[in-house]
Structures are given as structure tokens and as C-alpha cells.
């Protein structure tokens, strides 16, 4: 049991660290703030969650396992929220999107009142 746990933990740890690295590379490479959020909040969260999972596997204290799981839940709850709030705030505050962005239906909707790509059922009344 412990041996398999260790191996599993090892894999998770490396994966977690890998995702953390991906997040770091992501925010370094991606072209604008809005794309970087993806790397940061998603890869970063996955990274820390995996590491915590590994810790939960290794730990022999049930209370710690429980807390690790609670932490994972908390991270899953908060990661999208913080990403959402960051992105929205930045956009509202006027930080521009990368010129390479392929579409902005939000802008489109505001300017033209309708969105071309969406089927009519999608368009708000």
C-alpha cells in the first residue's frame, strides 16, 4: 500500500511541479494578460492541487488527508473566481487585448447589438 502510494505520490509530485512550470512558462510566453490568465489560473491550480494530492497520499494522518481534500476543493472553488475577477477588472479598467485575438463578441455585441458567429437563438434579445 505504502509503496504504491509512494510511487503514485512521486508521479503526482512531478506532474504538479510540471504544471507549475508550465504555468510559469505560460505567463512568460503568452502574448497578453488575458491569455496568461489561462496559464496562471489553470495550470497553476492543477499544479498545486496535484502536489497536495501527493501529500494526501503520503500522509498517514487522516485529518491531514481531509484537510488536503478540503484545500483542493477550496482551490477549485477559488481559482475560476479569481481568474474571472482579474480578467473582468482588467478589461473594465481598459487594459487592451492582444491584437492577435481572433474575436471579441462582447465588443461586437456592444457595438452592433448582435453577434455574427452565434446562431440567432444564442443572441440575447
Amino acid at each position, binding site marked *: 500500500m505504502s509503496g504504491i502510494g509512494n510511487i503514485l505520490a*512521486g508521479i503526482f509530485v512531478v506532474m504538479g511541479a510540471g504544471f507549475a512550470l508550465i504555468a510559469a512558462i505560460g505567463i512568460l510566453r503568452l502574448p497578453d494578460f488575458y491569455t496568461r490568465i489561462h496559464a496562471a489560473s489553470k495550470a497553476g491550480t492543477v499544479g498545486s492541487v496535484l502536489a497536495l494530492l501527493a501529500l494526501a497520499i503520503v500522509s498517514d494522518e487522516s485529518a491531514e488527508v481531509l484537510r488536503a481534500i478540503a484545500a483542493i476543493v477550496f482551490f477549485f472553488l477559488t481559482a475560476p473566481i479569481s481568474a474571472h475577477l482579474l480578467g473582468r477588472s482588467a478589461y473594465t479598467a481598459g487594459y487592451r487585448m492582444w491584437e492577435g485575438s481572433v474575436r471579441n463578441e462582447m465588443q461586437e455585441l456592444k457595438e452592433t447589438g448582435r453577434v455574427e458567429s452565434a446562431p440567432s437563438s444564442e443572441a440575447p434579445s
Partner: protein
Amino acid sequence: MNLLQFSDLFLDVCLSIALALLCLALLLTVARIWKGPTLPDRVLGLDVLTSSAIGFIAVIGIDTGFTLYVDIAIALGLVGFLATISFARFILTRGDTERSPVYGAPEPADLRARREEDE
């Protein structure tokens, strides 16, 4: 070498690799924070730094056997979230602040230039 011994060795190696990756991640994140160029970018950098640190804590916890370090990781997660959303809130309200400074006259051009240089 039985399974337990192998798994211990395996875990050790994995932990070292993980630590190396995490260190690299931390350094790269620092680079983004240094580069900016905008406030949101830096906030994002801090966010990544926080989650890397959480990973770091977990790995060290496993490495040293003090798995109770998980609590530190949790606390960091909580406070990191708080920091991120308060920055978000700040970024949101800052637009207003810029247009009509809370106190005194409208922002002079030179100050505005400085502020923009700031980002």
C-alpha cells in the same frame, strides 16, 4: 530491493525533480513580475508564485515527512486568493481613480506621464 525500498527511492528522485522544476518555475515567474508590463500581469505573477509556493510547501512536506505543512499551504492559498481578488478590485476601481482623483485637482500631465511610465 523490494517494492517499498524502490518506491522510497522513486519518491526521492521524483521529489528532487519536482523541486528543480518548481525552482525553475519560481524563477521564471519572477522574470514575468519583473517584466510586467502592466499591473495585472504582475498580480498574475504573484498568483502563480503563490501556487508554485503551495506546490513547494507540499513537496517539502513530503520530503521532510512533516505532512502537516499542508496547513501552511492552505493558509497560503486562502490569503493568496484574498490578495488576488483585492488586486482585481483595485484594478477595477483604479480606472475611476485615474479619471477623477479622489483629492484635489485633475491629474497634471507630467504626473500622468509618470504613472504611465510606471506601467
